[in-house]
């Protein structure tokens, strides 16, 4: 562990608090910074520090196991604890890393998309959103989860609405998201309230212990579980509750889309895992029923319907958004089968999909930056006019389909294998069919980009006009990461397996 030796001790012990306090405080400072370039620089530095911190905490966690940080020195279950274990450490790294990558990309993107006087508030909201996401993943206190969920959600509504400078539909999309997101958060907090009624504690580990003593608890616990699943389902865009997502992804500023697609729904999915397997337990009959019929059912229906909807979109951003809903279906399927292997596969897909979708949305944003492209037919000849950007889009797109030697392949083959092991052969078939549907909608874009000539404007063919380096670097980092995971998946699969073993026990 040579990297860990470089990290000072206090960062390892106080890292969990640092991880949520730093962006929270710096968001307030960034809001009053006068100059937008200074605001960008401070956000850049903060997210860089966050990435290093999250990474070293994750490494430290792999070495020493679960660590509990007592906020304010108050011991759990009465005080608020920050818990780092095998389940949330990879998600923490993911969120911090994606915020860092997005900020690099955001430097040119915000210049084009956000009014100068709104740029410092934009970065402040971005940092707040990061703080909220990191907080809700790291905290061990159920009510604290709700608080951070709201911190991240409210800043997300602001970020989505800032797309109004580019497209006025961002306002209605943000409003739609505001209403549905608030309903989701309300359902979640009602669920927490019922759980508190049943167990008399808010600490998640303590809740789990008391619920186990009560054999799953009374009807109150069942109602609580229902509210929590619906609330989180809204946040993570489970199929019939996903209607806020296409608008929010399509009309928000492009860096926000990439960041949301790769972190916001993922953090909510992490919470679903945490509540279904850690606080509750699949051995309770009602949890098993929900897993079997709701999560698998909605996951599979979502996979098929959202993929079909994606095929018929004319706006590429909406196409990718519907594809996100379908990909959430894969993760829900993995969670719903509820064997160690399948949960690991679902968790792996959570991480991989973040890398893939982040890359796709960054590439798409760069295309908008250069040519104002959002519609499918505008992709004609893009393989010639923006070869590097289109290359990154292609790599990530192939990974989304699940072509061998890419990240998408690794998680889909793991998921199919886990489904087959559990005897769910029809699920394997669904995975194959939806992969073909993904091939159709990504293939349409690739065909237009590579096998059509660039459009002519005023008699001259559109010349090559590549995206700036600050955009190419992030998108290629993600594209190469998805190939790297495809070739050398041991570390990711290992992390996912450790997470699943923490939830379900080995075997």
């Amino acid at each position, binding site marked *: 562990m040579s990297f860990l030796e470089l990290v000072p001790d*206090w960062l390892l012990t*106080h890292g969990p*608090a*640092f991880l949520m*306090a730093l962006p*929270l*405080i710096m968001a*307030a*400072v960034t*809001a*009053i910074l006068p100059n937008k370039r200074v605001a960008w620089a401070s956000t850049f530095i903060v997210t860089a520090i966050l990435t290093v911190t999250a990474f070293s905490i994750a490494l430290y966690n792999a070495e020493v196991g679960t660590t509990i*940080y*007592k*906020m*304010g*020195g*108050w011991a759990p279950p009465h005080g608020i604890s920050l818990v780092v274990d095998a389940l949330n450490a990879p998600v923490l790294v993911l969120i911090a890393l994606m915020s860092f990558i997005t900020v690099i990309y955001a430097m040119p993107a915000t210049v084009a998309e956000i009014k100068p*006087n*709104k740029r410092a*508030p934009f970065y402040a909201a971005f940092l707040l959103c990061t703080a909220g996401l990191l907080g809700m993943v790291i905290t061990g206190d159920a009510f604290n989860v709700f608080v951070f969920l709201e911190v991240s959600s409210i800043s997300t509504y602001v970020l989505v609405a800032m797309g109004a400078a580019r497209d006025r539909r961002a306002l209605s999309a943000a409003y739609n998201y505001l209403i549905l997101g608030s309903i989701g958060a309300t359902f979640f907090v009602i669920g927490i309230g019922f759980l508190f009624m049943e167990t008399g504690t808010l600490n998640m580990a303590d809740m789990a212990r008391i619920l186990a003593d009560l054999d799953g608890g009374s009807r109150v616990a069942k109602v609580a579980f229902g509210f929590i699943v619906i609330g989180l389902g809204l946040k993570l865009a489970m199929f019939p509750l996903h209607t806020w997502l296409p608008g929010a992804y399509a009309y928000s500023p492009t860096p926000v889309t990439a960041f949301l697609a790769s972190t916001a729904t993922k953090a909510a999915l992490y919470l679903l895992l945490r509540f279904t397997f850690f606080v509750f337990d699949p051995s309770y009959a009602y949890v098993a029923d929900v897993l079997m019929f709701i999560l698998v059912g909605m996951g599979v229906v979502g996979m098929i319907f959202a993929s079909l909807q994606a095929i018929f979109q004319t706006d590429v951003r909406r196409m990718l958004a519907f594809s996100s809903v379908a990909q959430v279906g894969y993760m829900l399927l993995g969670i719903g089968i509820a064997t160690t292997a399948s949960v690991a596969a679902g968790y792996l897909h959570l991480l991989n999909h973040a890398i893939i979708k982040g890359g796709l949305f960054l590439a798409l944003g760069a295309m908008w930056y250069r040519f104002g492209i959002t519609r499918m037919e505008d992709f004609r000849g893009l393989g010639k006019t923006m070869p590097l950007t289109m290359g990154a889009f292609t790599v990530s797109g192939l990974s989304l389909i699940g072509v061998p030697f890419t990240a998408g392949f690794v998680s889909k083959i793991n998921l199919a294998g886990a489904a087959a092991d559990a005897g769910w052969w029809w699920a394997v078939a669904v995975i194959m069919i939806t992969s073909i549907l993904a091939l159709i909608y990504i293939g349409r874009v690739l065909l237009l980009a590579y096998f059509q000539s660039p459009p002519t404007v005023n008699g001259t063919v559109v010349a090559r006009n590549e995206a700036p380096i600050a955009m190419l670097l992030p998108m290629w980092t993600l594209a190469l990461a998805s190939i790297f995971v495809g070739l050398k998946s041991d570390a990711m699969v290992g992390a996912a397996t450790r997470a699943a073993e923490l939830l379900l026990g080995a075997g």
Partner: protein
Amino acid sequence: MSDPNTKLDAQDALSERIGSDPHVLLRVISKFLIPLIALFAFYVQFHGDYGPGGGFQAGVILAASVILYALIFGLTEAKKAFPPRLIRYGMTLGVILYGGTGVLNLILGDEFLNYSNLGKDSIAGQHYGILAVELGVLITVTTVMIAIFYAFGSRQPETSDEDW
């Protein structure tokens, strides 16, 4: 027995003195009340260490005094008394006070927001810590409340671009 004419004269004199302003009573009384409301806010604030009260309630009460001023004397006057550009700095200052206390605890070698080492013993430390934190809450809540009122009160954004 007073002459009805003199009574009428007195009324005329009164209405002359108050001019055409029908709200003089409101203005006089609220001018008298506003400092008391602000004072009560600070009572709630410092009472919050050991009893019911604290930064949030105090912040709302303090903001209420500004809002009352705006209701009686108009938004323009209120904005002269409490300029909108202060709002942004106030919000930030409060958060920094709160978070900064936590960071100070980290520097002193304790957990985040563990105030025990701020004073000579842990009780004094907790006391100083909560004072600083509550002050931060007070500032942020006051400014946010006023910001919300200003935002609703003025339909056009009155903060000019330079202020933001």
